[in-house]
């Protein structure tokens, strides 16, 4: 296990990287339209806000663990705990299998539905099918995490 100061430094580095990227993306959003390159405003704003939030959360975490070394030690232990890693891996494996199966089912359906007289997936139905392919495995992942936490 890494020592606590290098673990803390890692949190600080990621915080600064995310804040830097957030500021960089925001500046790009301001500068590029003036150079005649139009970018979707919402996308730029969303990306920069997300990066800045990630950065500030890491910086806050860094400040907290620096001020409370004992709490930092606990956080580091939790992050590297082998049982938790095993649980996450197991839950991820289940979600991955489910995601693959759902994606395959949607793909087969959209490809062959017309051939056997089933209604084709288009518009909202296609959107919600793809949404389900993303959301259902995520929920299964969370469920598996909770289950494994209580049963292992």
């Amino acid at each position, binding site marked *: 296990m890494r020592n606590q100061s290098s673990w803390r430094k890692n949190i600080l580095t990621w915080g600064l990287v995310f804040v830097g990227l957030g500021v960089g993306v925001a500046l790009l959003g301001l500068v590029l339209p003036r150079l005649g390159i139009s970018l979707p405003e919402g996308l730029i704003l969303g990306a920069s806000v997300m990066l800045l939030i990630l950065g500030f959360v890491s910086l806050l975490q860094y400040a907290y663990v620096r001020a409370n070394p004992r709490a930092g030690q606990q956080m580091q232990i939790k992050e590297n705990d082998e049982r938790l890693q095993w649980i996450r891996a197991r839950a991820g494996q289940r979600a991955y299998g489910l995601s693959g199966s759902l994606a395959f089912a949607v793909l087969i359906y959209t490809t062959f539905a017309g051939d056997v007289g089933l209604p084709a997936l288009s518009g909202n139905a296609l959107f919600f099918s793809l949404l389900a392919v993303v959301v259902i495995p995520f929920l299964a992942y969370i469920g598996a995490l909770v289950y494994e936490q209580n*049963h292992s």
Partner: protein
Amino acid sequence: MENRLEELRAEKGWTQQELGERVGVSRQTIISLERGRYNPSIQLAFRLARQFGIKIEELFICHEGEDGNA
């Protein structure tokens, strides 16, 4: 797989939290190990055995035909 973790920890007078900190795992992991619901990695088994100053086979008792983590 059985183990003598709880017994040896009690002998030393350590809490689950304390033992967890000594070997770099959470208290929940120590609880799972003591209840036999989780089998440790070989590295963790070595770290635990070292803490008690005994051999792995004195700490963990693996019966024939037993699997790893289910």
